């Protein structure tokens, strides 16, 4: 029986420990490192894009490579950077916030991670095997179905595998939040980050199947000769667009909602105030999630759906501004009358409010269906979505990382360097993307490899590129901060921010079983309540007892590896039948691991209460 206490037995042991771990806190580390890695790759791709567009008639990279660059930039950033970073936060924080010892499905949690990672690796292998996907991250048919080479096949297989991982992760969080809450933690006492994780998981559950089907159809068309999107055989290319956006629009709320939650927690902590309008915030989250499913066709206003459909989708899209506005105002009024501390985490959150508001407002402008005939597929749209994504999601990830870093790694990120990273990134962000709105209106379509002298687009693009470099500088300072903190900063206390929620009631970093005794929750912001009543920690809900823990397992890794191998088989069987061997080997590995999992009992093990007492804090 493996012991989950990480022992310092050298690098090999540590790697093995991470490969087999089912501990949500370690899985959070895995997500963070791989998501961070992909963020750097996506950022590098963004820099190459910006360098190419720096001046008119530039030929820094070729047109074909440029299309691969934007496709991989969009795909990497959305699926392989933003999503995993969000999953890192959810894994690190949600079980602690609800007072749980573990997630509902530790094994599946690990499987979800490895599927994502192998899917992402598969996608990126395409760079080295003759060309990355080049049909845009939206992969519209028939451009994608007719794209030469195997790039799009990698897109299909890579996203299919990592998408399965995301779906599994989503179900895990749903059940964790439904079933694993500590006594007294009613739904209306859950911290906002937990709430938004919950709604996000619901969105994942209902949005990803549409992508799954879309990818299957794309796979069949490209690899097995079916005719879904092939108009010459009676197919219809618009089906892909619908399936993609039925998934794609909820996806953007999957990205932003968890960070709305993180901002809520951060803003209330650093204003020393309870979140203003808690129930309205919860309601707004649910409403955004709900409306998020009825608006996808706003990405298709120019497809020719007709004025009736366009009008309906325009109005329903605009409706989302209402719950989002509720949130913005509630954050403002949380700070109102508070005592605002400008920590680095708070700085990112403060910067988020106006940035996201601008992005949201350009969103509403886009929602105006007829006006979108001008905006659509121009840099105005690029401006819009980077404002919400970078100004919302990326700012949010930075804020949340600063906030929860002590809980994840036991040290507070250096505040000075935190501020130092913020300013170039913030200024660079506005320089890069604000000007793009005007470029769009001045007639610059998106996904343009180059533009010409004499179109008055040069100055704007130059400014935009300069801004991107500033963002890169900010990112590098942040990376430096991580290293600096690891070496120089002292161990953090359990509650460095004067926190309000349960994660701050246990040591930083928490013991692997999280809570020695399950806490009793007596209201919203349980730790704050206890502190106000003069107690040190949270009242336990049970006497000290044995703790049941799951076993580590290498099977999730093997299952994902199997699909990775089978992925190559599917991609290349078009060229040669022998590649079906890879399919067989890979699927054999995956199905064999699944069978092992299902036939071998895995009952976990117990930590005895005597051991808990001896270990004191579990440190």
């Amino acid at each position: 029986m493996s012991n989950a206490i990480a022992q310092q037995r050298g690098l090999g042991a540590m790697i093995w420990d991470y490969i087999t771990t089912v501990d949500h806190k370690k899985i959070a580390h895995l997500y963070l490192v791989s998501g961070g890695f992909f963020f750097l790759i996506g950022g590098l791709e963004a820099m190459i894009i910006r360098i190419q567009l720096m001046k008119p008639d530039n030929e820094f990279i070729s047109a074909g490579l440029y299309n691969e660059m934007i496709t991989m930039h969009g795909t990497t950033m959305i699926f392989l950077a933003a999503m995993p970073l969000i999953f890192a936060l959810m894994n690190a924080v949600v079980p602690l916030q609800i007072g749980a010892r573990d997630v509902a499905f530790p094994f599946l949690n690990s499987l979800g991670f490895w599927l994502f990672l192998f899917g992402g690796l598969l996608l990126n292998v395409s760079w080295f095997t003759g060309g990355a996907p080049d049909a845009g991250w939206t992969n519209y048919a028939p451009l994608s179905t007719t794209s030469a080479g195997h790039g799009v096949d990698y897109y299909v297989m890579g996203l299919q595998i990592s998408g399965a991982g995301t779906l599994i992760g989503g179900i895990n969080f749903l059940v964790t939040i439904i079933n694993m809450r500590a006594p007294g933690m009613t739904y209306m006492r859950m911290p906002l980050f937990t709430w938004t994780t919950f709604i996000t998981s619901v969105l994942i559950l209902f949005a990803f199947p549409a992508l799954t089907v879309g990818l299957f159809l794309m796979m069949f068309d490209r690899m097995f000769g079916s005719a879904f999107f092939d108009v010459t055989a009676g197919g219809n290319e618009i089906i892909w667009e619908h399936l993609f956006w039925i998934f794609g629009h909820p996806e953007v709320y999957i990205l932003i909602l968890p960070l709305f939650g993180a901002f809520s927690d951060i803003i209330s902590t650093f204003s020393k105030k309870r979140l203003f309008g808690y129930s309205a915030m919860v309601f707004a989250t649910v409403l955004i999630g709900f409306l998020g499913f009825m608006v996808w066709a706003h990405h298709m206003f120019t497809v020719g759906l007709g004025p009736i459909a366009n009008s309906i989708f325009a109005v329903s899209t605009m409706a989302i501004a209402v719950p989002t506005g509720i949130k913005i105002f509630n954050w403002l009024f949380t700070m109102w009358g508070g005592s605002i501390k400008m920590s680095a985490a708070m700085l990112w959150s403060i910067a988020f409010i106006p940035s996201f508001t601008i992005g949201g407002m350009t969103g509403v402008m886009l929602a105006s269906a007829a006006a979108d005939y001008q905006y659509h597929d121009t840099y105005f749209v690029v401006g819009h979505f980077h404002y919400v994504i970078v100004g919302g999601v990326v700012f949010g990830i930075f804020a949340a990382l600063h906030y929860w870093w002590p809980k994840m790694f036991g040290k507070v990120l250096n505040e000075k360097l935190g501020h130092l990273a913020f300013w170039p990134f913030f200024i660079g962000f506005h320089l890069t993307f604000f000007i793009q709105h005007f470029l769009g209106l001045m007639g610059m379509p998106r996904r343009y490899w180059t533009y010409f002298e004499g179109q008055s687009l040069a100055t704007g693009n130059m400014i935009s590129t300069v801004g991107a470099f500033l963002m890169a500088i900010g990112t590098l300072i942040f990376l430096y901060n991580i290293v600096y903190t690891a070496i120089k900063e002292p161990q953090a206390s359990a509650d460095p921010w004067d926190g309000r929620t349960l994660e701050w009631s246990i040591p930083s970093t928490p013991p692997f079983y999280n809570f020695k005794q399950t806490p009793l929750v007596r209201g919203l912001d349980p730790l704050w309540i206890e502190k106000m009543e003069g107690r040190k920690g949270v009242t336990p809900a049970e006497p000290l007892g044995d703790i049941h823990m799951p076993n580590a397992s290498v099977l999730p890794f093997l299952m994902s590896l199997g699909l990775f191998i089978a992925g190559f088989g599917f991609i290349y069987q078009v060229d040669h039948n022998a590649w079906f061997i890879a399919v067989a080997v890979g699927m054999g590995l995956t199905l064999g691991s699944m069978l092992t999992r299902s036939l071998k009992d895995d009952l976990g093990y117990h930590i005895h209460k005597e051991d808990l007492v001896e270990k004191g804090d579990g440190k």
Partner: protein
Amino acid sequence: MKGWIGKLRPVFIFSVLTLFLAGCGEENLSALKPKGYGAELLLDLMVISIAIMLFVFVIVMAIYTFVLIRYRRKKGDEDYIPKQTEGNKSLEIIWTVIPILLLLILAVPTVQATFDLADEAPRSEEGSITIEVTGNQYWWHFNYPDQEVSTSQDLYIPTGERVYLDMTSSDVIHSFWVPSIAGKMDTNPGGNENTMYLEAYEEGVYWGHCAELCGESHSLMDFRVIAVSSEDYDQWISDMQNIDAEATPETQSAQDGKAAFENSCMGCHAIGNSPAGVGPNLSNFGNRTKIAGILDYNKENLVDWIMNPDEFKPGNKMQGYNVSEEEAQQIADYLMQLDHSEVTPESVSSSSEE
């Protein structure tokens, strides 16, 4: 929607936009300088929406600035514990209802404009012009079915009149966009035909772009809309109808070029009316201002293009023929004298500059 919005527009553009940029882009490329009905309608709509957004933004920023200045933690206040307010019903109602009202103000003109731009009713009237637009990787084909005239790359339309477009694609999805005259519309392959209309106010040459990613040379799939007076338009149509594809060119070089062209190029290119083709229709190639939509129009460039099209438009479909440099020179001579009409982009831009 004209009226007050119309008056607001110049003021607005002047005050806000010029703040950020010296100009608003190229005269005939920018959506901010409308020269046609659609673009104007849409700019009005944008102005309404920007006004609403600015209003909201000012309010948000006012609260924001006040809060940040007033409630920032000060030295000595570290232990101060603020009042833990739960919320406020009337505030909640205010910031729910006011946005709803603002959005309604935006929704009404949005729906109106959406239906307006889809209005096909006048089309059935006598004499209305229909043009079939086909997007191809990476060029545009325009066919005037009623007049039996075809052209590529340059779309001629009369001013002050609605011209209806029936739009499809021969390969992947493209999107037809002339920012200063109208919005954009996708061209779909297969049976999903789209329609839109153009109405240009002034004579002029307007830039058009392909706005949907369609492959390597997506960014090079430019075209032009040439708006001319209705007399000139009629003139142009009749000039085009009377092209004699067999006419013998004047110079010897051009005559040789014609022979070489017929030998190597006719499989894809047509001179005279051809509702569709593998390559652009070259009937009035002598009147172009650009080669393949992007290159400056001169003989040198044309020869280069013929010898090596892939260098200028990566991935384009002009391939599989074999001509020598000399033949290319002759073909260029031939093609450049195919100027059958007095109505040309030059004639328009010179007249509109006066």
